[in-house]
């Protein structure tokens, strides 16, 4: 198995399928995580993983060896996620902000592994985050994930999503507004509880 991505890409370009397999094994989990955040759905994320590696394989000749393979793959995965989001309009949720008031039991069957810090946050807050994320429209979700988690600038997101800068900004504004509406009361409660515990401890 080639030790570096660059070596694996060089071999894969010459038709070495084992070299490409090495790339799949190294990167498929990261692509899945990204796709899951973008699409909010494990099944869609698996499809994105397939499509991403298929495209990467077909476009290997266009990959510049000086570039970073994971960055390049990441870009393809983002595009594939966007394509899938557009191609499956039935998954469009696009709830109004008022829908957030109707959140009930979470149906997001997810198996997250919270970090120790995250244990400070109540399970309910995490549940709300999952629900609030799933209540975003596809463009809001894509723009928010790219800005908030991927750290892409609004200009970069505009180019990736093919939107004008203002449209991208407004997608992010709406997403943040919905997230705040869902989370603020709970985050405030958590803060209050933490402060009370701290005050009790000080007494």
């Amino acid at each position, binding site marked *: 198995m080639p030790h570096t991505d660059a070596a694996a890409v060089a071999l894969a370009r010459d038709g070495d399928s084992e070299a490409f397999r090495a790339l799949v094994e190294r990167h498929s989990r990261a692509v*899945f995580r990204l796709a*899951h955040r973008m699409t909010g759905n494990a099944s869609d994320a698996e499809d994105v993983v397939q499509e991403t590696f298929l495209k990467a394989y077909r476009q290997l000749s266009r990959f510049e060896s000086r570039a970073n393979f994971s960055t390049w793959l990441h870009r393809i995965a983002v595009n594939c996620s966007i394509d899938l989001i*557009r191609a499956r309009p039935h998954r469009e949720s696009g709830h109004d902000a008022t829908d957030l008031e109707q959140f009930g039991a979470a149906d997001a069957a997810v198996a997250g592994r919270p970090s120790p810090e995250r244990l400070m946050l109540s399970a309910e807050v995490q549940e709300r985050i999952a629900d609030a994320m799933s209540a975003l429209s596809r463009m809001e979700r894509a723009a928010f994930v790219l800005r908030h988690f991927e750290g892409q600038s609004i200009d970069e997101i505009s180019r990736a999503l093919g939107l004008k800068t203002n449209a991208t900004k407004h997608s992010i504004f709406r997403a943040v507004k919905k997230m705040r509406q869902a989370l603020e009361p709970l985050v405030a409660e958590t803060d209050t509880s933490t402060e009370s515990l701290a005050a009790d401890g000080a007494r």
Partner: protein
Amino acid sequence: MMATQHLTDDELILHYYGETTARDAPRTAGHLQACVPCRAEYARLQRVLASIDESAVAVADPGPSFERTVWARLEPNLKPVRRGWVSWAWSPAPLALAAAVIVLVVGAFFAGRMTSPPTPSPTAAAVAAAAEQIRERILLSEVGAHLDRSQMALVELVRADGTGTDISGERSRAEQLIADNRLYRQTAEDTGDVALSELLDEIERVLTEVAATPQTGSSRDLADVRRRIESRDLLFKVRVVSSEIRERQKAPIQRQSGPRS
């Protein structure tokens, strides 16, 4: 003196993400320093957004055998890497058509040998070039049809008017066209067809914008789309390139398949 106008939620969000413009940054920072209510509001926003980190957004665990499963699904679909138009042309339909044409070309060659005086034989390269040209012809035909469909969609958008117009049909058509458009654009980029690639890029931006417009498009949304189409003479460009493609389709195959004496 502190400005009386408070920062808006949008300004606070831009500030949080470091997206405030260089021109507005000093005013935003100065106002936050001086204004207690805005500072409190910003602190609330920070708390909420800070609570949404990657570990909070739980991602399903794909399981320990995920990589093996991915590879098992992927491997049968990996064909030998091919490039540009050729990669498109290796899909089944054009391939079958190209094979049929090759049979005809080769058949015509042997028929010619039997009925004409001996002439310099066409080389295998000439036959391959003819086959390649057939593939390109098929692709041109597909791109031409795609441009026609895009043109119709653009015309309908330009004609749509009124507040609250239901543009679900246009949205759905745009979504269908985007995937094809992207494929043709990438292929045009691969083959260095800059004019076609740029046109398809412009079309894709408009289609994407339409696909992202709410189902009941506001007059402003539609006006933006119309403005983009009109300011860039997009319809005119589509017609010009469509016409060029039709001309290229009419060019005889033999002309470029090598000289015959």
